[in-house]
């Protein structure tokens, strides 16, 4: 099967780079693929869609009334990572995660990094993601960010960059698990021929990891629950999925209240204490008494229980200060400050528009850059310079100039590509990678992650809310 189409940027293809032949991690898969009847593969693509619809793996797209439940498109060609590549990524990620937690502890206590002048004071004090309520609070087991999804992009054989540290409530892990499940259903023979490291113990690791960071006073078997904003939330499927896989309760704010200094859930037998809460509700909605008073999604008084050390909240409130896009640009300094070593995984060069020189550069080169809101996520409120029209650039420049500190800019990276299956055969599309990290008394990664793929030819936007799809991600056991 020949590669079809081309992307505008000369991108590194992870299967079949232009300059050299088929890459080693893909040899066995390629051999298998060449033996397949194209009609059978087309059939498998349809089967995959049916599997996802049947299991109800959908996500809601905000602002689209018609398609209130949509599937994230799934591509049947796996993204394959060699054992050696994975080991290098693991080291880099572990280092980064360690630094993120050390940074959070420092920021909410002695603030040594600010005193040392490595990160500007203003950036913290004037940041909405910084919660003064967390000053001096040390979470159980000293962990702030327990579940992290670090977005990584690749630009060549040996170049990997961290694009974002999702340290508050990373989503998508259910897709990692369901994608593997689906691939094993569709192509069982592939998994006999190729040794792929398993990811299915993620939920078990997550549960163990959450139990390990329980409050000190809690004994052997803590009660764990997942807090969801409710069944209308776009990631509800994932919340339910994780609670189910861990064998813990899925609770909403309306189920919870503070009883005798503990957070408790309303059960058919009365209120029962919760020790560890894996919350998928944003900080602002967590406690109407402390934060947004209008929130019906949280638990009035939970912050008092937290400060008294009677509940673990994962991830800790105020964690967002570490994955703020303005802070991101300081990550190389942050990693070095806390680990004493250079960052193994690099940052994408970033212009902070709050700095006059940078702003000037960004405004002059807006057509070449990707500009993001400091607090934005999910691909909303950003500008992709090269793909934007003159008018879009001009409009965005005006927004940028009126509130520069709200934006950062990055060069348009030639994200690596991995082929997807199209009606005309394989065609390369840009991808990124989000591995999932668990922090307790140790740091753990499941070998794999979520590969997001921009399905539109040439597109660099992989977000599911903007037409991206996903792939199963294989880490080879080699």
């Amino acid at each position, binding site marked *: 099967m020949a590669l079809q189409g081309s992307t505008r940027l000369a991108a590194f293809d992870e299967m079949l780079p232009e300059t050299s032949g088929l890459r080693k991690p893909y040899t066995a898969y390629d051999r298998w693929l060449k033996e397949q009847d194209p009609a059978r593969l087309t059939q498998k693509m349809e089967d995959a869609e049916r599997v996802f*619809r*049947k*299991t*109800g793996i959908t996500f809601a797209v905000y602002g689209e009334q018609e398609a209130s439940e949509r599937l994230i498109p799934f591509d049947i060609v796996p993204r394959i990572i060699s054992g050696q590549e994975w080991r290098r990524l693991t080291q880099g990620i572990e280092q980064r995660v360690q630094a993120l937690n050390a940074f959070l502890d420092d920021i909410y206590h002695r603030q040594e990094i600010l005193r040392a002048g490595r990160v500007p004071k203003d950036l913290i004090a004037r940041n909405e993601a910084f919660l003064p309520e967390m000053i001096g609070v040390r979470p159980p087991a000293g962990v702030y960010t327990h579940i992290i999804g670090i977005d990584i992009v690749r630009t060549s054989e040996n170049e990997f960059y961290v694009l974002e540290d999702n340290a508050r409530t990373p989503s998508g892990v259910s897709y990692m698990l369901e994608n593997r499940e689906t691939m094993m259903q569709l192509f069982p023979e592939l998994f006999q021929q190729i040794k792929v490291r398993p990811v299915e113990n993620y939920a078990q690791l997550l549960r163990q990891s959450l139990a390990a960071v329980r409050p000190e006073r809690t004994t052997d078997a803590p009660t764990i629950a997942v807090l969801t904003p409710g*069944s209308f939330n776009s990631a*509800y*499927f994932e919340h*339910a999925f994780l*609670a*189910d896989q861990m064998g813990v*309760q*899925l*609770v*909403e704010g*309306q*189920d919870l209240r503070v009883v005798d200094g503990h957070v408790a*859930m*309303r*059960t*058919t*037998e*009365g209120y*029962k204490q919760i020790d560890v809460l894996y919350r998928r509700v944003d900080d602002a909605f967590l406690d109407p008494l402390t934060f947004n008073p209008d929130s019906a999604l949280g638990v009035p008084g939970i912050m008092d229980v937290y400060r008294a050390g009677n509940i673990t909240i994962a991830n800790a409130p105020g964690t967002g200060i570490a994955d703020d896009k303005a802070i991101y640009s300081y990550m190389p300094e942050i990693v070095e400050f806390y680990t004493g070593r250079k960052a193994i995984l690099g940052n994408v060069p970033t212009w902070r528009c709050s700095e006059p020189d940078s702003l000037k550069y960004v405004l002059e080169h807006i057509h070449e850059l990707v500009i993001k809101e400091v607090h934005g996520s999910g691909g909303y409120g950003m500008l992709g310079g090269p793909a934007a029209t003159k008018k879009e650039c001009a409009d965005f420049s005006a927004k940028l100039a009126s509130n520069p500190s709200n934006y950062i800019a990055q060069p348009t990276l030639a994200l690596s590509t991995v082929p997807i299956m199209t009606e005309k055969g394989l065609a390369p599309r840009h991808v990124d990678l989000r591995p999932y990290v668990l922090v307790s008394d140790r740091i753990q990664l499941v070998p794999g992650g979520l590969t997001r793929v921009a399905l539109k030819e040439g597109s660099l936007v992989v977000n599911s809310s903007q037409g991206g799809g996903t792939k199963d991600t294989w880490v080879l056991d080699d």
Partner: protein
Amino acid sequence: MLLGRTANGLYWMNRYIERAENMARLVDAGLRMALTRTQDASEEWTSVIISSGSDVAFANKYSEYTAANVTDFLLRDVSNPSSVMSSIETARTNARMVRTALTRETWESINEAWMALKRMLAKPIDERELPAVLDAIKRETALIRGAFYGTMLRNEIFDFSQLGTYVERADNTARILDVKYYVLLPSISWVGSTLDNYQWESILRSVSAHRSYRWNYDATYKPSNIADYLILNGRMPRSLAFCYRFISEHLNLLADDYGARHACHATSTKTRSLLKVGSIKDIFDAGLHEFLSDFIRDNTRLGNEIAQDYRFY
């Protein structure tokens, strides 16, 4: 351990699945009558609407009781909260909410039923398609029940689900019986007599009991036998006695599990004892309509007590 909100979701999920199936059966019985009778069928469709408990809402929307109006209202109309489409939609919303309490098979069967019926009921139903649509609704709900019985652990989750099913079913059977007797019985003195009326068959048909009736009684339809069958016969899966046998069983299992009895236990025990010792003659002597009205009221009260006793809200 079970969240009160989850128990509530399970209870209503099952009430609505049961309701969807009952609606389909009711329309099926109406259709059958309309086909076998030569005269105007609007009388039968009127009684179908009254049995469904949605006569006021229907009258607000339509003036004629035609097959097309009634089937559209009871099967497709999303402004009717008890239509099949609304019921399946509500059942699925509840299932989604309690997703973690359900086996994958149960969730998938509900989700698939929702997808299939949404597609099937998207456009007005052609008269010729109606039997196939009704079959499909009954098949989908049967698949849900099969997945549920086949895969669910017999724990509190199962108990609350079953309570929803039987409270809904008891309500449904009592209503059908009440309405039909009102419409059909010319005078109380006819109770013991044999009536050659297709309408009687429609009562049995609307609870899928027209064949089993003949195994238990005889080939002729006697009002007293029909009432006996649907109220007191403990072997008939849609009878009030049968429903209360299981309501009591599941409430007792919950009481054993939790080590606590509540108001709902007293109510169900009282209702069950009425159904256990009663004879159909006594019921007719005291007035069938009064009996059924009391029953429907107590059954509703039981539902409210269950919600309160187990902290649904």
